[in-house]
């Protein structure tokens, strides 16, 4: 039997957030975050309107909650630069760091307290109820990773695996600093080797020095009834690039906030995600491009395929500050409903306060193209296979953004396999 347990404040702040022996700046940061926590966001919090966590009960399986044995899934890509974080805590590190790439457990980095890291941690906006999870995350600050790439270094791929399954919610923080001209492909795998549901609250802070480039690929395929809250904040220096590609195939509830803030001129971001909703999954993407500087370019691409009783939410926000002339922003979101009980909510949000700006957006929600389906069938391809081909094709534009060929192939294959797992097929 599954037991229903709602998320409540008690779950998170039952204990004092101050830890003796830790530096005082850190305890101050934790305490101040804890003081700001007023409860989880509900329907009245605009940013959480379609994903009212406070009202939502998140199930945890009571039977085997204590006996969770983390099973690390097959790595998504083959690399020696791999970190395994079990329940948000570092359990396996790369034997040796590549030249110019420094990866260390956040706990150790917090003790060393380098000024850039302290500044980064203190800079995260966490006011208001919409940032309730970040408040909790900061109050519990301690687990996670610090990743640093030295100037001019191309550090290749770094894989983070996130098996997770404890009864209580886990909080983790990833801090990434790329110095001038540095380059990294961060690949994240949110997946369990078993069917145990995950509960993870993750905040990622990324700082890009002049001319730096970060590719960020993320597969989320947690078991049903999992809860993943992820917030990614990217601060762009001059002429930097950030490319995010997310693919979600699972979870009970997954929420991704990805925000690029252009602090320096001539920067660009490309935020892409493809979601296949199955079962009762609820996946919510909030993309934001914040044009604070001139001549920056942002693109947002979202593809949602909602099967069974799933619900998929997309909110694409573009903000162009006064004086951020020469801004260019493109946005496209499209949804495919495979079942009558599924739901897709897509909302573009454009706030343009400068004059010399190009901003385009488009959103559609529909069903599989019947003309294309008949064309495939008329050549001998079964309805089932045709549906898979067309769905994969629909998500292709997102997956094609992944710059790593093996990862690209593996994501495409995962998507096809996940199509098989839809309960009802096409209704």
């Amino acid at each position, binding site marked *: 039997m599954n037991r229903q347990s709602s998320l409540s404040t008690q779950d998170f702040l039952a204990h004092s957030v101050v830890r003796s022996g830790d530096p005082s700046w850190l305890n101050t940061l934790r305490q101040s975050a804890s003081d700001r926590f007023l409860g989880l966001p509900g329907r009245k919090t605009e940013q959480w309107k379609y994903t009212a966590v406070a009202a939502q009960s998140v199930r945890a399986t009571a039977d085997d909650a204590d006996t969770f044995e983390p099973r690390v899934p097959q790595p998504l890509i083959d690399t020696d630069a791999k970190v395994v974080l079990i329940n948000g805590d570092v359990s396996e590190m790369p034997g040796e760091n590549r030249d110019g790439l420094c990866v260390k457990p956040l706990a150790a980095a917090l003790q060393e307290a380098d000024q850039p890291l302290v500044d980064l941690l203190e800079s995260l906006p966490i006011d208001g109820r919409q940032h309730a999870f970040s408040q909790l995350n900061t109050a519990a600050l301690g687990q996670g990773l610090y990743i640093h790439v030295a100037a001019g270094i191309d550090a290749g791929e770094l894989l983070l695996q996130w098996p997770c399954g404890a009864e209580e919610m886990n909080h983790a923080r990833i801090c990434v600093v790329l110095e001038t001209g540095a380059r990294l492909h961060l690949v994240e795998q949110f997946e369990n080797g078993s069917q145990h549901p995950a509960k993870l609250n993750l905040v990622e802070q990324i700082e890009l020095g002049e001319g730096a480039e970060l590719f960020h690929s993320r597969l989320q395929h947690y078991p049903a009834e999992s809860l993943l809250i992820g917030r990614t904040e990217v601060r762009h220096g001059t002429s930097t690039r950030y490319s995010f590609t997310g693919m979600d195939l699972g979870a009970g509830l997954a929420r991704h906030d990805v925000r690029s803030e252009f602090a320096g001129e001539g920067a660009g971001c490309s935020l892409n995600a493809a979601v296949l909703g199955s079962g009762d999954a609820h996946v919510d993407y909030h993309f934001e491009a914040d044009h604070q500087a001139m001549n920056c370019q942002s693109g947002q691409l979202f593809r949602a395929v909602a099967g069974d009783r799933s619900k998929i939410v997309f909110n694409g926000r573009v903000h162009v500050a006064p004086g951020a002339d020469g801004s260019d922003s493109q946005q496209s979101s499209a949804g495919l409903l495979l079942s009558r009980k599924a739901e897709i909510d897509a909302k573009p949000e454009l706030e343009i306060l400068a004059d010399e700006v190009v901003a385009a957006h488009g959103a559609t929600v529909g069903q599989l193209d019947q003309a294309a389906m*008949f*064309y495939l069938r008329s050549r001998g391809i*079964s309805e089932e296979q045709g549906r898979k081909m067309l769905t994969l094709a629909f998500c292709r534009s997102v997956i094609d953004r992944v710059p790593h060929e093996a990862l690209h192939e593996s994501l495409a294959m995962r998507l096809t396999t996940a199509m098989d797992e839809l309960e009802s097929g096409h209704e």
Partner: protein
Amino acid sequence: MLKIKELHASVEGKEILKGLDLEVNAGEVHAIMGPNGSGKSTLGNVIAGREGYEVTRGEVAYQGKNLLELEPEERACEGVFLAFQYPVEIPGVNNTYFLRAALNAQRKHRGEEPLDSVGFLRLVRERLEVLHIGDELLHRAVNEGFSGGEKKRNEIFQMAVLEPKLAILDETDSGLDIDALKAVAEGVNQLRSPERAIILVTHYQRLLEYIKPDRVHVLSEGRIVASGGPELALKLEEQGYTWLEDGGIAELEQAAV
């Protein structure tokens, strides 16, 4: 190979085919001509099994089987091929991948081993050469951004790879310039064989200058009103379709005897 008896079919409640009879044997090429709205495309779509085309009466026997009972993909696997009047663009699905999936689905149906990518590519290159088509079509998404001529060539190319027993070409000549028309016709002629039946559905006689049909049928208001040899097409071209309605049908029937 194909026996159609008293076929009645409706689209959105409107009867288009009103008692059509047609018999096509292996090795034959038949042309079906008729004015717009006579039911030419409906016939092709009914045979291929498109949704929305409701057969209200009559029968379609294909190799002794009741074709109307089969799903569209089963018909294809049994060797029925429709070259579309308007080939569908499918962004994101690679043309080669699509065609290999189709061929292997058909091979599986016949109890044959699937072709691997090497074997498939060899077959594809062979066919391209015979049809004088470059391989640039292979690397693109199915029909996406293809010109009218490229789309029609792609249909013929698919036909050459899938090697159907019964091919219906639905106005494959429409919208083609003379070079593209010749290329398509040459492709069709290459595929003529004693085991294969081909039905050319067309509005104009032009295509028949390049593909010599064994039989020509005139379709008018949902029925075959006259059948004859290639000379029937010429007569029709000379007189125009309006002449049909002005009592020409009786004349045609006489001429055909």
